């Protein structure tokens, strides 16, 4: 089982916290990768919150290809940051790419008066174009191209990946208020970087554990729904696309995500006042239902963090908190590392019919389906 985690704080923190969170949950041989998404960035990226930030791992040729494409569209580079890579230590279990690129861009001049939606479309289109070009040449991976979001995915032992990127020691430059993280790659398919959680699309982040047994159903339905629903290297990408579709495309409130992925049983549904709506959702989106065993952690563009489970709660998850930080992760041992002094009586073990939602004031709500 993959271990997944998310930390949301009202203060900026360094990804070293996520390594603390995940390493205590690590088991035996499943050290195949480490990946995280940072949202609501601080430190060196704080001045650029409204501008697109490119996260990419590539070869030199891949970098040239990507830059050519970006420049041809009209993006101009404003800021560039490269992690301080530890190339001296030997014996690290990691398969690094030659370059890790984190660059902030200005929008093309033509987009000066563009609406938010137009800019968002441009970012998705550009990312897909970059991905296609890099894939064709097998010269790299583009993880995200979005404002206030940074992503890194790498193959290898999480501890060694941390050493390689210098992530074990906190600093004030490389920080954010939300980080979602996973310490293992999907084992059902080839170990490829795109298959590593978390997954990200237009401000939505999702990571999950467990097999998506309705993968084929989900995928068949999603592949025609939106240009961004591609890849499907991992069966868990479906959870992200469903979240995006329900909340962003259909514009339904977040709580309906739960009604889509784990509809109530019919007998219960027909006793409810909102049965007409729920029955329609169940029928129209039956191909987006999931059937477990899964825990899903998600972040929406406004910074809301949530967790929910399959309808039989076949995977564990726990929510712990203190007054500065909320942590959601697979096993409580991880939270004990990060928040050892918290009041454990406030820990939440979500049930199969609820969504635990953390707002930007770290207020926690438990939504019963």
């Amino acid at each position, binding site marked *: 089982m993959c271990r997944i985690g998310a930390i949301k704080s009202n203060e900026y923190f360094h990804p070293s916290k996520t390594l603390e969170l995940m390493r205590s949950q690590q088991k035996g041989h499943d050290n195949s990768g480490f990946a995280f998404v940072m949202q609501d960035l601080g430190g060196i990226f704080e001045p650029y919150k409204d501008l697109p930030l490119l996260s990419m791992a590539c070869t030199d040729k891949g970098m040239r290809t990507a830059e050519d494409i970006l420049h041809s569209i009209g993006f101009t580079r404003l800021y560039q940051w490269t992690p301080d890579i530890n190339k001296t230590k030997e014996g690290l279990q990691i398969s690094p790419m030659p370059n890790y690129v984190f660059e902030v861009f200005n929008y093309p001049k033509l987009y000066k008066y563009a609406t938010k939606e137009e800019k968002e479309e441009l970012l998705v289109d550009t990312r897909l174009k970059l991905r296609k070009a890099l894939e064709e040449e097998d010269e790299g991976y583009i993880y995200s191209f979005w404002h206030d979001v940074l992503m890194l995915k790498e193959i290898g032992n999480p501890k060694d990946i941390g050493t390689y990127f210098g992530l074990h020691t906190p600093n004030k430059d490389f920080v954010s208020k939300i980080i979602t993280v996973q310490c293992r790659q999907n084992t059902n398919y080839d170990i490829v970087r795109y298959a590593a959680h978390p997954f990200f699309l237009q401000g939505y982040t999702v990571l999950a554990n467990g097999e998506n047994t309705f993968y084929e*159903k989900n995928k068949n339905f999603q592949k*025609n729904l939106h240009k961004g629903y591609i890849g499907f290297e991992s069966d868990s990408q479906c959870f992200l696309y469903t979240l995006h579709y329900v909340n962003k495309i259909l514009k339904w409130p977040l709580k309906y995500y739960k009604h889509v992925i784990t509809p109530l049983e019919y007998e219960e549904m027909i006793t409810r006042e909102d049965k007409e709506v729920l029955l329609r959702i169940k029928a129209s989106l039956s191909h987006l239902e999931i059937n477990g065993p899964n825990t899903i952690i998600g972040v929406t563009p406004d910074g809301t963090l949530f967790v929910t489970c399959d309808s*039989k709660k076949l995977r564990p998850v726990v929510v712990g908190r203190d007054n500065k930080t909320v942590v959601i992760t697979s096993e409580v041992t991880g939270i004990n590392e990060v928040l050892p002094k918290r009041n454990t009586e406030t820990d939440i073990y979500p049930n199969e019919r609820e969504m635990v939602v953390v707002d930007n004031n770290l207020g926690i709500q438990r939504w019963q389906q």
Partner: protein
Amino acid sequence: MAAVDTTKIDKQDLVWQIEHKSENCALCGKCVAACTFGAIKADVIRKREIISTDLTPNPKSVEKAIPVIKQVVTKSKNCVGCGMCAKVCENGAIKPVYNERHRMNVKYRANNAESPKRGGRTNLHTEGRTLDKIKVGRISQMTDPSLDAMRHTFELLAPFGRVMPPENLPLEVDSTGNLQLNKKIPTTRWIYPIIIGDMSIGALSPRLWEAVSIAVAYLNEVYHIPIRMCSGEGGVPEKLIRSKYIKYLIIQIASGHFGWNRIINSMPYMVDDPAGIMIKIGQGAKPGDGGLLLSKKVAPHIQEIRGVPKSDLLSPPNHQGLYSIEESVQKMFLSMNAAFKFRVPVSIKVAASTTSVSVYNNLLRDPYDIVGGFFLDGIAGGTGAAHEISLDHTGHPIVSRLRDCYLAAVHQGKQGQIPLWAAGGLGMKGTLAADAFKMICLGANGVFTGRLILQIAGCLGDDYGRCNACNTGLCPAGLTTQNPILMKRLDIDKAAQNIVNYFLATDIELKKLMAPIGNSSLPVGRSDALVTVDKNVAERLGIQHVC
């Protein structure tokens, strides 16, 4: 020697030959009484024996009259192999034996100048059953937990009615952050993924029809299994139309419109809506043929319920006045929807054909959102009466056609919008749950079954030529007859009980198939759960080839 007429039909030409052991016969006559076809008669044969009763040989010739049961040989009416004679014989003195070297295909046509007719399914087994070559091979083993069929809860429900594309749902967010429907849209109902259908009163005896109705009501009311039955094209008893149990019945309208005068006249008195409407275009067992109820079965009660005189009742092979798919939507779907004020799902049933995908694609573009189900019936389906030539030589297997329709919908991103229901030989081997489950994994929302119900109710026929005399009105089990005496051979309560029992077992078996793949709701389109050792099947259906 005088000329022998070898063109005449004799016993060695027959499909079934009666084997009678006179030495075991008690001369009770039960077999003759039980044979509804008049295929045997009590007779006497002359036998000469040479005997010697003296101490020394003194042969004498003795003439004896031996009572026997003799097979009747006629041009058109012969033993069908139902085996009623053997069933009633306590001494095992008589039985029909299949004659592999029969010549009735030649003799019948040559002697009668007509095409042989019968009921049942195709009896030509020129290829194996595809579904038997498929196994549920994706078992939850450590990647995810298998479920427990006896402890976990499962939801076995399929949509019936038009399913709106999500982006077209008339939903808006109210001030409290809840979604509200702001417009009326056609009904979608959730029912059991197996429908009993669609066999008419007329094809079936009223007693069997009643038994099926009782079983359906019992499964719903007592076991809460929301199974539905389809009336077939033969009308509905007025008492049922006006009862609350109409909600379990899908009413069929076919090209003959039989019984619809009475249905329409009864509509003002309905206390509940029917489960749905099914427009029948074709039938898998005899595609391109219309309905056929021979006058032998058009008894007074059938004349009354259908509103017809005694005669052969032939539904035309097409709906008069419909010349296109679009027109069927505009005329039939709209009028049937409007008749029930858009509260009742209206579906369509067609025989599987190489054209099925085009039809389904076209219906998926239905601009009024009123096509509530696509029922696809394959070649191995059953019938009450058809020309043998149609039964054995026309039609299309259901499995690949269903899969094609599903994948066509997937290609357009419209899967599930018109629920797909499949039939045609499902449950042929008696294991309906396995067949249904595999079809669901291939993309069906549910399946429907008819012939199997007859077998549960006591049908003596099989798919290898036994009986299949549903068309004659002489059903030895009292199932497909309108003869008041023969009908009484059916014990209504027992038949109903057997149908209930069968579905209780099927319900458990479906769960026993869902549990190991880790699903508690129906795995519609989950073809990744299926494997086959047949490479052609794997390739054609897009499932994993294993060996």
